[in-house]
Structure formats: structure tokens, C-alpha cells
């Protein structure tokens, strides 16, 4: 177990290191001279040389990387060329919004998928099962940028149940905040529901054919007890794995809905920064999201070993 985690942790460090190098190099992929980007094309060569020195651009690349990485560890990701705000400030104000969206959407997804699967798996191929299996197959074809506009058209523009855009910070007005977040969260939850439901249902069906379930049945245990105490855990491994896999899709989803609903999360800032060519902001957000993603995968791997100890057996 310890050995397994040490290896996974080393993997994590290596991947994080490679991410940092690639993200650092991104800025150097830029065509042309960053000083031209900052000062404009008409400035003098002398001013450019001074800026070169200020930014450390005259140093060898590896040295620039070391300086940059030191800054990163001290919470300094540089500042925006445009409004001179530190990049870390943008990230600090943005990330709770992404996390909130992801958490709400995942809570909804599990609340829908798990009970539904528990009901339908007991009687596969009945009407309810067929309906949910078919409709979740359809939901697999509804990425956020397809379903979100439909939801806005129906629930915001048509029925006026929710605002079409806008965002109120949670600290300012929790109720309004949640109200604003429901529609965006629903838009990214569709795919999760479909994946979780389909996986959990098919695993439950196969678990229910195991001998220990027959045994439990013949002991006269109630169906509810069998489903929750005997079938749930052995069927939930793929569900957890899928939740881990799903994080990438969720990040993409939050970017889409933040853009559509004008919610100032990380995705919104990222897209804005890309359009304004605010490169350090792009670099900073990319680094933070990529590293957070890798760390989350690591945590989910850990949870996985808690649910299914067989994973670490070597």
C-alpha cells in the first residue's frame, strides 16, 4: 500500500514537473518578441533592451524557468499586461465558482443516477428501465454547448424561471447565488447523469447475479437491504472511476457555461485572456487548472483503494 502510493506520488510529481515546463515554454512559443507585444512595434531598441533585462528575457532559458518556478511557489504568477492585476488574484476570485458549479452538478448527477439505477437494475428490460436507458443514451450526445442554449431558451427566455446571465457572489447573497447557479449546473450535469447511470446499472445487474446475492435472497433478506448492503459497494468501483474520468469533461463544461452565462470563473477569465492576448493570465490559469486536475486524479485513485483494496495488491 505504502509502496503503491509512493510510486503514484512520484508519478504525480513527474507529471506536475512536465506540466510546469510545458506551460512555461508556451509563452516562448509566441511568434515574435514579447517586448514588442508589451511595448508595441514602434518603441526604440534601447527601451526594449531595458525591458528584456527587467523581465529577465536575456537569461538562458533554463535560468528563466528556475526564476519563474520560484515565483510560482511564492504565489507569483506575474501580472496581467492589461489591467496589471496579479494573475493569482484573478485565480483566487475565480476558482471557487468552478468548484461550486462542479459540486452542484455532481450532487445532482449522483442523486438522479444512483436511485434510478437501483430501481431499474432489479427489473432490467422493463418499461422504466428501457426508458431510462434510452434517454441516457441520448444524453450522451448532449455536450454542454449543445444543451445549455436549449436550457436558456426554455427556462430563462421562455419561462423566466432563471436568469439568462448574471452572477451574484455566494458571500453576498447565498440564495440568489444558488438560484443563478442551478441552470449552469444542470447544463453540465446531463453528461454525468448518463455516464453514472449506465455504468452503475450495468454493474448492479451483474452483481445481482452473483452467488452471494442468491445466498442473501435465500436467507430471506429484504430487497432494500440486499441492494444497499450487499450489491451497492461491489458495484460502485466503476462509478468512482468514471467520476474521476469525468473531471476533464466537467472542466470543459464549466468553461462553456461560464462563457454563456457570463459567470466570472476561471474558464471565463481564461477565454477572455485568450481573446485579449493576455498571455501571463492564460499561462497562470492553464498551470493551475492542469495541476489541480492531476492532483484530483491522485486523490480519486486514493479513494479508489479505500473502496476497492484489491487495487494495491501487487
Amino acid at each position, binding site marked *: 500500500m505504502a509502496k503503491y502510493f509512493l510510486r503514484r506520488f512520484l508519478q504525480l510529481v513527474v507529471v506536475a514537473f*512536465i506540466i510546469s515546463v510545458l506551460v512555461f515554454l508556451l509563452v516562448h512559443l509566441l511568434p515574435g518578441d514579447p517586448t514588442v507585444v508589451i511595448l508595441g512595434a514602434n518603441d526604440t531598441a534601447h527601451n526594449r533592451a531595458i525591458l528584456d533585462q527587467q523581465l529577465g528575457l536575456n537569461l538562458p532559458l533554463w535560468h528563466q524557468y528556475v526564476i519563474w518556478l520560484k515565483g510560482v511557489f511564492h504565489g507569483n504568477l506575474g501580472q496581467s499586461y492589461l489591467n496589471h492585476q496579479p494573475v493569482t488574484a484573478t485565480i483566487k476570485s475565480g476558482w471557487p465558482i468552478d468548484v461550486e458549479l462542479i459540486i452542484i452538478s455532481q450532487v445532482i448527477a449522483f442523486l438522479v443516477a444512483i436511485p434510478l439505477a437501483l430501481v431499474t437494475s432489479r427489473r432490467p428490460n422493463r418499461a422504466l428501465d428501457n426508458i431510462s436507458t434510452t434517454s441516457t443514451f*441520448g444524453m450522451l450526445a448532449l*455536450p454542454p454547448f449543445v444543451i445549455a442554449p436549449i436550457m436558456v431558451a426554455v427556462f430563462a427566455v421562455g419561462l423566466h424561471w432563471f436568469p439568462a446571465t448574471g452572477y451574484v457572489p455566494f458571500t453576498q447573497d447565498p440564495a440568489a447565488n444558488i438560484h443563478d447557479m442551478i441552470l449552469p449546473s444542470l447544463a453540465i450535469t446531463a453528461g454525468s447523469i448518463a455516464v453514472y447511470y449506465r455504468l452503475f446499472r450495468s454493474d448492479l*445487474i451483474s452483481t445481482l447475479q452473483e452467488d452471494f446475492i442468491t445466498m442473501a435472497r435465500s436467507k430471506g433478506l429484504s430487497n432494500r437491504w440486499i441492494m444497499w448492503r450487499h450489491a451497492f459497494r461491489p458495484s460502485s468501483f466503476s462509478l468512482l472511476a468514471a467520476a474521476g474520468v469525468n473531471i*476533464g*469533461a466537467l472542466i470543459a463544461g464549466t468553461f462553456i457555461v461560464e462563457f454563456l452565462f457570463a459567470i466570472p470563473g476561471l474558464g471565463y477569465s481564461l477565454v477572455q485572456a485568450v481573446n485579449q492576448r493576455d498571455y501571463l493570465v*492564460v499561462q497562470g490559469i492553464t498551470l493551475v487548472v*492542469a495541476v489541480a486536475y492531476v492532483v484530483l486524479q491522485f486523490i480519486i485513485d486514493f479513494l*479508489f483503494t479505500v473502496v476497492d483494496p484489491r*487495487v494495491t495488491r501487487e
Partner: protein
Amino acid sequence: MPDDRELADTRSAPRLLTNQVPGLAAADELVVSRQSETLDSEDLLVSKPMGILFWLAIGWVGLVVVAAILANVLPLPNPDFQNYSSINASPSLHHLLGTDDLGRDLLSRLIFGARVSLVVGFCSVTVGLLFGGTLGLISGYKGGRLDTALNAGSFVLLAFPAIVAVIAIVAFWGASLFKVTVILSVAVIPLLYRVVRASSLSFANREFVTAARTLGATSARIVFREILPNVVPVAVTFGLITVAGVIVIEGSLAFLGLSVPLPTPSWGNIIAEGSSNGELNINPYIMLWPVLSMFLLLLSINLIGDRLRQRFDIREGLL
């Protein structure tokens, strides 16, 4: 020593699919679900006929492909032509799907927009299969140092959240049809590599391969004549699911305004234009057509992939 290597494989495969295929989880199921003898009727009826839905799905994909190829030949107005005398027109005989806020014909934009999704989707998966597939085929059969190195590389690449990496590269490199296709090709190489490698590995020690080796066949012959034909169904099925995933990523990028630059239409950017604040109120058709087409296209590709998977009986013991 099947222990370590296989354990690592079964556990890492889902992660890869994860990134690359947001919102599209036929692939996840394929990989994640553990091997089991389910009573699932789907699995039992491997050789049942494909069914009418399958052919409808083929029909829709075919229609979209043909329309996209023939876009220049079809009697359509220029997708960028702005006709100010018919702005936000409803569907009519003259404009079958209506016009947008600049008086551009929506059917024309829809059909020309399909080109972007299809080119990006099919080209990057083809390139991904050529490179990733070939490498996977060889390293699955050969094993050894090459395999170890490629595995490590593919893990690192798959550890990136695809959408973030793609956005970052587009931000610094710029967006065009060619660049987006190149970036997404690179993004799917490690994914398809892992799938093909796993499949190749599962055939590497089968009797017919041993027999060929005993008869003195060269490695190249074994890989391409013995293993490749067996790997093709898996590669094609997965490739198809990946096409849907790539189309989703391209659509997301286009929606965010980070794919093919305007005014070139693509389904993603038409949806974004049509979902802007006032537009949903005034003319929901702008958004409706590409949303419907995209939904049906993804549904069809998923359905075809799903049926092929059943037909070839691909389960995920492999991965």
C-alpha cells in the same frame, strides 16, 4: 508477469478516455465497466441484425457528410452573404431554414459549418490512428524498452486535461482549421495508442501468432498480417467514438470563439452567435438548427459505435 503491467493498464485506460472525450461517454463505459458476464441482453445477442436505428444513424451521418462535401455544388447562397432585405427571416421556400440577424442563409451556414466538424473529427482521428495505432501495434507486440518509453509518454500526455491544453495552445499558436486539426490529432494519438496497444498485446501470445513465428515469419509480417486484422475492429470502433469526442471538443472551442475564426461558419460558433443575449428572444432558429444537427450527429456516431462494439464483441478486459 501479468500483475503489475495489467493492473496499471486497467486502471489508467479510463483516465485517458476521460480527458479526451468530454460529454461523450460511450467510450468510458467501454473502458471502465469491468469484465462481467452480465445478463444484459445486449451482450447476449451479438449477432442480431443491426436494426433500423443503426441504418437511420448511418443515413444521417451519410447525409451530413455528403452535404458537406457537395456544399460548393449545391444550389446554396454564399454562407457569408449578408442579405439585409431578409433579416431574421423564418423558414420559407426561399430560405429553407430561415436567415440570421445579418440576413445570412442558415441552411447554407449549417452545411458549410458541418465541414469544420467533420474535417477536424475525421482527419485528426485518421492521423491519430496512423501514428498512435502503428506505434501501439508494434509496442504491444514487441514489448520491451520501446513499450515502456511509449507507455510513460502516453501517460504524461493523457494526464493533461485536454480542453485546457488545447485552449492554451490555440491561445499561443493561433486558431485555424489546419492548426486545430493538428492540435487535436496530437491530442488523440496517446489515446488511440493505448487502445491499439492493449488490443495488440492481447493477441501477441495467441496460438496463431506463435504458429506464425514457428513457421519463421518476420516480426513485420506477424504484426501486419496476423495481428493487424484482429486489431482493426477495435481500432475502428474506438476511432469512431473518438471522432465524436473530437467533434465535441472542436464544437466547444468554436463555441468559445477559439476555433476557426469568424465569419467562417462552424456549428459551434453558430450556436454561440445564436445564444447571445437578445438573439434567443428574437430568432431562436439560429441556435436551434446547429444544436439539433450536432445532437443527431453525436447520437448517430455513438449508436454506430455502440452497435459495432456489440457486433465485434469488444469488452474491456482488453484495456
